[in-house]
Every structure is written in C-alpha cells, then in structure tokens.
C-alpha cells in the first residue's frame, strides 16, 4: 500500500544527554537514513559510538535527561514526537520489534520462557484460548529456532545463545513492520550468529513491507545479511554505502570504515590506533582526525554532509597503496 516509501525515515536525528554541571554529551548527531521495505540496513561502529542510543531513541526508551532533535518517521508517525501512551500501545512490539542487546537482562528472571512468550503473544496477537496459545507459543519458539524442550526453563538455566533466541522469539511475536536488532549476535558462536541473522533476514524477506535495522559491531554478521551499511563514529554516521561495494571492491571510502575492516582477523588484523573520543568532549572538526593517517589541516573543520563524511575519502577505485 505504501509503494516504495521507506518503512523508517530518519532525518537529522540528534540526541544530547544533559549531565550534572551543565555538561552535554553528544551521543547522536544529525543522523540521516532510510530503511526501505524488504531492506536490511546494518549500523556498525565501535562500542560507545552511539549506536544503541539511536536504537533507544527510536523506541522512546531514552532516559529523562536526554533531549532529541530531528524526526524519525515510521509511516505517518514521528517516533521522536510520539507520547508514551502511543509508544506503549501502538509502537513497541506492534510497529517496532526489538531484538535486545543483552537477553539476560531483557527476560524476566522469575518466569519460564513459555510463560513470557505466551503473555507476549496474548498481548500482541489475536490468538486466544489455552490450546491455541500453546500452539502459537511453540510455533513462535520454533521460528526463532528455540528448542521446544527448553520452553519450561527459566532464563538463568539457558546458555547465552538460547537466551538470545528466546528474546528473538519475543521480538518476532508481534509481526512488526520494523525489526530493530540491537547487537543481536553478541556472545553467540559463529554458527548461531549465522542462524540468528539468517532468521532475521528470512523474516524480512517473508513479507514485502518489512524492514530490518540491525545495530552491530560484528562486521561478519553485517556482511552476511545487510543490503546497505551505515558506519557510525563518535555519534555521526560517517559513511552510508551499498553492502556489496563496502565489503568487496571498491571497499569502504571513509578511512575509519577502512580501518575497521582491516582490523578483522581474516584481513590485516591490525587495530586502529588510539581510542574513540569522548562523546562529551568532541573536537570541533572531524572526530576521527586524531586517529587518521590521512588527516591534515582541513580536518580541523567538519567535513560537508554527504554519503562519506570525510575531507579525504578513499576514491571509488582503490589506490595501489591501499591494497596492502
């Protein structure tokens, strides 16, 4: 019905935290991106770069000292302007399904997985009646590859991988058009990572109108399922690129994205020197300049907005020197 209109359209999203003493932490700055129906956008970056804050902003789950600007349109609804009642009754679970970062903290520790899953299904779907709910619970568990014989266990009795699958099952329960996966593969082994992301991908492919925003630091998982990649550094999206070009040739264009890829154990396995800057104390210019081999005087000013936020991006055709 919506044609090719994006499922989620984020325009100039910024999040500031007001800290005691008048300090301000710039967690997200001027983020622009769309997620189209049937598309998977991977938002990648180092820990502490603002990825999870962006996710919380989309769900209206920011703490009270946060101030947002810009808009995030999910259909006609601006998620940033919506009140708590709208968010609670129509958004969370129904329009946006969250696959959380740490399932151990997300699941209720004193109840079994079966009871949590059944409650979620009863709240979000029209399924009613004991036996129907029971069947729906099994089906929902199976969708996330959660073993049926573990349904009667409590969260502490599950391995990290199974807890993640339980949380994924809860996120899939409401059939939301936008799936928001916040580090869904942290702590899982490689086979399980592949299965988890394949499951998320299948969920996107199964319905034309559905989209997935996956926030991750796992570049291998991003490569496996993403159509497009957004690289975040120090609160800004520094590169937004097609996944095939990003992971293959010509490769990433922003020096930071390049460094991140070269840190992979199946590539150069060399870290980017230094640490990311503090979000409360960002430099006026390019935040990556202090760690960047290409930095010069021009980097003291913020690069102009564009698909690559850099004064000296790598060219679309790789230079000989970059092929090391």
């Amino acid at each position: 019905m919506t044609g090719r209109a994006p499922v989620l359209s984020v325009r100039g999203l910024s999040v500031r935290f007001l800290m005691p003493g008048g300090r301000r932490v710039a967690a997200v700055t001027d983020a622009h991106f769309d997620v189209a129906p049937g598309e998977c956008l991977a938002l990648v970056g180092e820990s502490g770069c603002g990825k999870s804050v962006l996710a919380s902003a989309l769900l209206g789950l920011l703490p009270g000292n946060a101030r947002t600007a810009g808009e995030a349109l999910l259909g006609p609804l601006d998620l940033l302007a919506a009140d708590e009642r709208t968010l609670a009754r129509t958004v969370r679970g129904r329009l946006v399904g969250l696959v959380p970062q740490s399932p151990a903290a997300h699941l209720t520790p004193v109840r079994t997985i079966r009871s949590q899953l059944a409650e979620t299904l009863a709240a979000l779907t029209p399924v009613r009646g004991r036996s129907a709910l029971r069947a729906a619970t099994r089906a929902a568990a199976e969708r996330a590859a959660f073993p049926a014989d573990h349904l009667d266990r409590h969260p502490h009795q599950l391995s990290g991988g199974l807890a993640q699958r339980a949380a994924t099952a809860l996120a899939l329960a409401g059939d939301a058009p936008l799936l928001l996966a916040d580090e869904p593969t942290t702590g899982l082994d490689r086979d399980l990572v592949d299965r988890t992301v394949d499951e998320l991908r299948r969920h996107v492919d199964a319905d034309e109108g559905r989209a997935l925003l996956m926030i991750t630091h796992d570049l291998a998982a991003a490569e496996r399922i993403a159509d497009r990649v957004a690289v975040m550094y120090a609160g800004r999206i520094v590169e937004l690129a097609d996944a095939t070009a990003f992971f293959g040739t010509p490769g990433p264009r922003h020096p930071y994205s390049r460094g991140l890829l070269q840190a992979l154990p199946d590539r150069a396995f060399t870290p980017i020197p230094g640490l990311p800057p503090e979000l409360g104390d960002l430099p006026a210019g390019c935040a990556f300049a202090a760690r960047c081999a290409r930095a010069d005087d021009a980097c003291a000013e913020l690069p102009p907005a564009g698909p690559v936020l850099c004064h000296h991006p790598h060219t679309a055709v790789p230079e000989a020197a970059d092929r090391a």
Partner: protein
Amino acid sequence: MLDLRAVTAGYPGHPPVFRDVSLTVAPGESAGLLGPSGCGKSTLARVAALLHRPDAGTLHLDGERIRHWRHRAPRAQRTAFGVVFQQPRLSADPRLTLADLVAEPLRATGDREHLGERVAALAARVGLTGDLLSRRPHEVSDGQLQRACLARALVLRPRWLVCDEMTAMLDASTTAALVGVVEEYRAETGAGLLAVGHDRVLLDRWCDRTVEWSSLITPAAQAPAR
C-alpha cells in the same frame, strides 16, 4: 605444561557438563579451544585456571599436581594464571576505579612496591590513556573496561593466560588491539595461552593450534547422562 586428564566437571544438582575431557597446552604454546555456546568449554577453562573444582580427573600445572582449587589453592599456583572473562561488566567491581581494578591483584598479594608506576605502564600498554584510569566501570565503554580487565590479568606477570571469550563483546578494532597486547606479552615472557572462543577465524589467526571441543569428547561421554 598445563595438563588436564580425564576431567569431569559440572555444577551441584545437575549432571556433569562434560566427562573425561583431556587437554594439554605446552609451555609457551597458544591453544585455541573452539566450541558452540553452552558446550562446557568455559567450565573447562575455569577448571584449568583453578577457578572451578572438577568432579573427577587430574590437572598438572608445570609438572605439579593440582590438589586444591579456588581459595584453597596455594597462592603461587593461583597467581600463575591471568584470566580474562567474556563480560567485563560482570568481572569488574563497580565500586573500583579502573586504576584500582588493575592494582587489586598487587594489593591482594601484598606487592605494593612501585604500584602506581606499574599500573600506569600497563594501562598505557593496553591503551588506557588520560583520565580513564580515574573512572569507574559505569563511566567507560565495554571495550575500555575489557582493556582494564586485561591489564588486571597481566599485572602479576602470570605464566599462563586463560582468555574465556575475551573479545566476544568487542568490535573488530578493539579485538585486534587486545589480541596484540596478549601476543606482545607472550613474546616478552614466554607465557602460555588457553584462548576459549567460538570464532574460528579469530582463533586460527591468533593461536598456534585450534582444538575443536567435539574432538575432546568421546562419543560415549557425549551421550546425555539421563
């Protein structure tokens, strides 16, 4: 030599997590232990690092048979190990600053000489600069906290390092940086390493040899206990 023979281990009230598992790591060697979630590889690593008493089997540390685990083990044996866990948030006392976190093993063993300098040198090595050392865990990122946890593991200059999914929570760049620090330390001291993980690409690149968990288990032992 770190020599685990026919180890059976588990937790009270449950059938053993694994039975009859043997694993040997030569001095100075780096061995990667690869297995899926929940297979028991972390429990084996805890047995090897004297943090969990096995139900059966033997452990020899550099030729000496281990008879006691945890606080019952002699200090000389306990401090032969440096351990880094998967989740820095769960393995760091939230009340300590990062500097105190790194210094804690020195204080606990009464080795206070040049404490400040040693902590500072190690912090620089793992890349913790500036005011990060004066912060508490909630004020730093996972990657920064794990850097401190690695420094804590190295502060007593252990002969053995046990890294249990040290990098599972970390991004690619921090992973490469921490593995670099571990390898630099090993090149300098000849310490042995048992790295537990589920990322084959990483362990193959990092370790001298990678052992599959499934190859340690005999088919009979793999069958469920009940």
